């Protein structure tokens, strides 16, 4: 039998919601052409174990030409597994806010994980977890990082086609404002006073929210050179409270180091959020 010339593709999941993997399945028109070009050898989300060439394991044997990694590192087992995956992968690309920045679960980095465990689980002793949620790049070298919660379908295809063509992906690290202006969306902050994180947020979504009159909430994380202090001043000017400002940065990319130095945002608690206010 002729060896299969197609590069092999593996998709991996860590602490995440599966939404970014689903973005690959959502490439409806491109999915079959993609399988002409790559051999999808490990993708639990899409395979039924019986038909799969590989057993439905969480780790796989490899080697793989390209690994897409979703999710953040939250357990000791995750740490072991991501090192294994890195060893058996020629290229490793993280997909989405969890894998690239730690995800919403990185809120634990600002709190006491023991408290969470006791509050959330009926039998907390069954839960073995790390104190922090960290991006893949904190554990192993990463070849490329895709942002977003979830990732953008077009950007995923761009990374895959660039990989196949052996070129650099066209993924810009400038602000969402570029995308609003290029598509002709009137700035909702200037024209309507709507608070918007667009000026400090990484492009890639096509400026989806502002096009529908909603402020960007930063699901793609920080752009290349975010001026957080100026942004926070502007958000106050647009009527956001300190508490809301802290919260808007404490979402899917909460652990991004760029958000750290902002006064008030590095505090353990959001100002004006007393613990007795309600369940966290």
């Amino acid at each position, binding site marked *: 039998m002729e060896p299969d010339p197609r590069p092999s593709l593996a998709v991996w999941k860590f602490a995440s919601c599966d939404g970014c993997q689903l973005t690959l399945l959502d490439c409806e028109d491109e999915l079959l052409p993609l399988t002409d070009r790559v051999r999808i050898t490990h993708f639990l989300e899409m395979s039924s174990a019986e038909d799969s060439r590989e057993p439905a394991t969480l780790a796989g044997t490899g080697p793989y030409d390209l690994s897409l990694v979703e999710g953040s590192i939250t357990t000791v087992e995750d740490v072991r597994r991501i090192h294994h995956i890195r060893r058996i992968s020629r290229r490793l690309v993280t997909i989405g806010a969890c894998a690239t920045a730690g995800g919403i679960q990185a809120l634990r980095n600002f709190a006491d994980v023991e408290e969470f465990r006791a509050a959330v689980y009926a039998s907390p002793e069954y839960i073995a977890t790390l104190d922090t949620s960290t991006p893949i790049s904190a554990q192993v070298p990463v070849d490329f990082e895709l942002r977003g919660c979830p990732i953008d379908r077009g950007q995923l295809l*761009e990374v895959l086609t660039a990989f196949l063509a052996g*070129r650099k992906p066209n993924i810009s690290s*400038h602000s969402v404002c*570029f995308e609003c202006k290029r598509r*002709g969306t*009137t700035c909702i902050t200037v024209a309507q006073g709507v608070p918007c994180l667009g000026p400090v947020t990484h492009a890639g979504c096509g400026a989806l929210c502002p096009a529908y009159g909603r402020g960007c909430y930063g699901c793609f994380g920080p752009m290349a*050179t975010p001026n957080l202090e*100026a942004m926070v001043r*502007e958000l106050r000017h647009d009527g956001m409270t300190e508490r809301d400002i802290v919260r808007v940065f404490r979402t899917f990319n909460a652990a991004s180091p760029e958000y750290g130095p902002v006064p008030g945002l590095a505090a353990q608690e959001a100002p004006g959020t007393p613990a007795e206010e309600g369940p966290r």
Partner: protein
Amino acid sequence: MSASTLPPAGGAVIGTDGLAALVDVLRARGYTVVGPTVRDGAIVLQELESAAQLPYGWGVDLEAGRYRLRSRTDGAAFANAAGPQSWKTFLHPARVRQWTAERAGGELVIEADDTAPPRFAFLGVRSCDLRAIAVQDRVLTAGPHSDPVYRGRRSGAFLVAVECTEPGGTCFCVSMGTGPAAGPGYDLVLTELVDDEGHRFWIRADSTEGAEILAELPGEPASEAVRRSAVDAVGSAAERMGRTMPDTDLRRLMAETLEAPRWDDVASRCLTCGNCTMVCPTCFCTTTEDVTDLTGDHAERWRVWDVCFDLDFSYLPGGPVRASPRSRYRQWLTHKLGTWHDQFGSSGCVGCGRCIVWCPVAIDITEEAAALHDWTRRTEDEPR
């Protein structure tokens, strides 16, 4: 301009029916008519099917970082200043496909994307924007390498200018010598009047086709009274500019202030988001993106707007040349007001005020220039 100045002779007076006829005549001649209309809380530029889509009865309140529509009782269509877009959206579009390449049977076939652009008629080109188009004409077509995309869209364009009678709070065309009266370069020019005599427009032609079209519109010769009212309205607008540039040689000011501490100050406020350049009617920079499809047999080259605030803009092996926000803001302003003269023989700023309005954090080009000017005066006073 004082009321005693004798108004120029000629032209006609048309009513709102005449304006409606103008749009119809232009469309009948095969033009894609683009003009102002209200959408998403702003007066934007888009294709018009009829003059009924014009922003009759809408004004705007403009401040640094703030734009608000306001209804007007007089029903005027053009008593509003620059909106979020400029005509470069149509003449120098944000995204253009330049060529496609196909690989078949081991051969590569490259085909230029030279589909004929629409023939545009722009309705409502302000004096500042008329000047901005002239600036882009020089930048994009006057040199040895004329840009075919811009040239194709520009050469067939019909311009209907509108003189400003209601400047915005961020306007400073008088400082830049670009308005509010329309300079040359139009086919037709309108001056809107709404008073006891009714809602009407003094319209003049400055091209053969403009004169032909004017002859097709229902109207009557402009009386001296109408012409005088129109000239007075524009003259009054000149006295109500919301902003002024410092009264100094800006080109020299830029060259002399490269190390001013003000650049650090503005950098602490600047988001480097790129909004100022994308709304600027003269900023013209682009980058190219090559895209391939999954098969690898089809490739396209796209040209997209780029901005000197983007790190990638000055990226060379080893990293971006202008890594600091300070260096990027300084590049933008010193080019716009200073080195543009060296490169293209004029200022790059036409005083439209868009960069002031659409900056989310209200950075004001006139305020920055004034601060630099103050700094030079202070340092002159100090013993050296």
